[in-house]
């Protein structure tokens, strides 16, 4: 009897292990594939010329494989979108967690989270059809499909992440800290700014970085509204070509295993490294500054 039970136990353990390993194996296989297909480009150009080269003319003769303008585009779009989404996301989170009544908060939070449920193509469509002509008219610029438009759309996409995770972080600050602050004669606002926010800073930082990592990897929106010019932007109204947009639009045309094809995979590697970095930083902050909460004895 006992033996049979042991066998069942062991079988189940193995089964769970295999299932749990599947996604990790998959991830590694994709990574290996990515590197195998990307690395051959460095036979044609050096790593330095690839990353710092200003010219991306993969189909010219001879071709130029410099992705600096793509990297700058990705970073500037992400940064500008962060400038919009961080204040909006965090202030909304504060409102939901600290100011709104419980009922109102319970309505608003799912609504904000629902924003994340919008397919990115819909947001891209919105930016293309509505925001672009609007920007074009208001600012009198040649095209509404540009860095600013893309940043705005990406901000919409990262606000739910930032808001929802920040709200969780703020919500988890123990009530005893709020009470201690109020009991000392602090106002509600002082309590939020000086006690609650510092205490939830690690959670909020994680939220911000995860929101940004979503923005930097987002493809459809930038493909649709960023304008697509592989140039280093000089103003926020210049069209840009972030890395994901470049990969998505060119991959279909690049001949299999050509230099262009490898260059696109190498761009994928760079992008992967950026998102990986964001996630590592988020993880690091979450662990290092973990809120200890109420005093433990």
């Amino acid at each position, binding site marked *: 009897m006992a033996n049979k039970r042991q066998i069942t136990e062991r079988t189940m353990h193995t089964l769970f292990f295999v299932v749990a390993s599947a996604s990790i194996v998959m991830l590694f296989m994709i990574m290996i594939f990515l590197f195998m297909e990307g690395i051959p480009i460095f036979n044609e150009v050096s790593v330095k010329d690839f990353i710092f080269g200003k010219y991306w003319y993969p189909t010219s003769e001879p071709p130029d494989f410099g992705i600096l303008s793509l990297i700058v585009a990705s970073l500037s779009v992400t940064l500008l979108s962060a400038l919009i989404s961080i204040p909006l996301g965090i202030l909304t989170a504060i409102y939901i967690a600290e100011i709104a*009544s*419980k009922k109102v908060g319970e309505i608003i939070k799912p609504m904000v989270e629902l924003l994340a449920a919008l397919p990115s193509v819909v947001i891209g469509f919105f930016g293309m059809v509505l925001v672009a002509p609007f920007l074009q008219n208001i600012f009198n610029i040649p095209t509404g499909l540009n860095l600013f438009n893309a940043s705005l759309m990406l901000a919409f996409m990262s606000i739910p992440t930032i808001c929802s995770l920040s709200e969780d972080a703020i919500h988890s600050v*123990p009530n*005893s*800290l*709020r*009470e*201690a*602050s*109020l*009991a*000392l*004669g*602090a*106002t509600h606002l*002082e309590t939020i700014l*000086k*006690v609650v926010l*510092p*205490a939830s800073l690690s959670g909020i930082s994680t939220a911000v970085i995860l929101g940004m990592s979503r923005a930097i990897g987002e493809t459809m929106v930038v493909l649709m509204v960023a304008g697509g010019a592989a140039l280093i932007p000089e103003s926020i109204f210049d069209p840009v070509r972030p890395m994901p947009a470049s990969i998505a639009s060119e991959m279909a045309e690049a001949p299999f295993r050509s230099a262009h094809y490898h260059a696109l995979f190498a761009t994928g590697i760079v992008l992967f490294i950026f998102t990986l970095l964001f996630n590592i930083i988020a993880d690091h902050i979450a662990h290092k500054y973990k*809120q*200890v909460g*109420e*005093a*433990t*004895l």
Partner: protein
Amino acid sequence: MPKVQATSSGESVTYKEICVDKPVKIEVKHLNFYYGKVQALQDNSLDFHINEVSALIGPSGCGKSTFLRCLNRMNDLISISRVEGNILLDGLDIYDPSVDVVMLRSRIGMVFQKPNPFPKTIFENVAYGLRVNGFKNKTFIEQRVEESLKLSAIWDEVKDRIHKSALELSGGQQQRVCIARALAVEPEILLMDEPCSALDPIATQKIEELIHQLKKSFTIIIVTHNMQQAARVSDITAFFYMGRLIEKGGTDTIFTRPKLKQTQDYITGRFG
């Protein structure tokens, strides 16, 4: 068993003798308190006098903490709560709509059941109350932080790591930092909600000694589950049961010759 009667009848002779020379600081008149539809306090009247330590005792859920938290309007934070009756601080009703609750709370310090230092340095914990009350002078703040930490008998233990996180301290030390934090804003009254319930006996003893010291400058009201503690630290003891003030009097009287059997049963550990 004698029938439980309205609060005023519970007043003992000794109580009057003790208090006659000390001015009233807080006067609670017919206080009712509701959590939604549940009435947590029923018609309680009680006075607190300057430079006196009053202990509120009673079994869990008897309303003593709720009573304490009415005194600095901490219960305002519970949206479904409702207060009836009057609480007069120096003769002025603290529930009057014109009262600035932020000002009120800076006059009434509070120490909580569990040590709850902010995740900041020891210095910033104690300086916090000063900063939010508008003090900016650096030397003044440093001075007051040091004084408060000395007053709470924790200075010697923390003076070398005053700029380290308060969360690194032991529970007893944290609680004394929390007391220092409350004292720094120079409140007139100190409310203590079971301040030693999470501490070991040695830390408890330190806090009790501290209460004796602080009595000289503050009006102290302490909620405690610990009968011996009430006997050791307080001048006046009030016994609560089921949301009612059952008996109040000089601590000696309450612990040696309580008027009501219910009080005696609780004190001698027959229930609660």
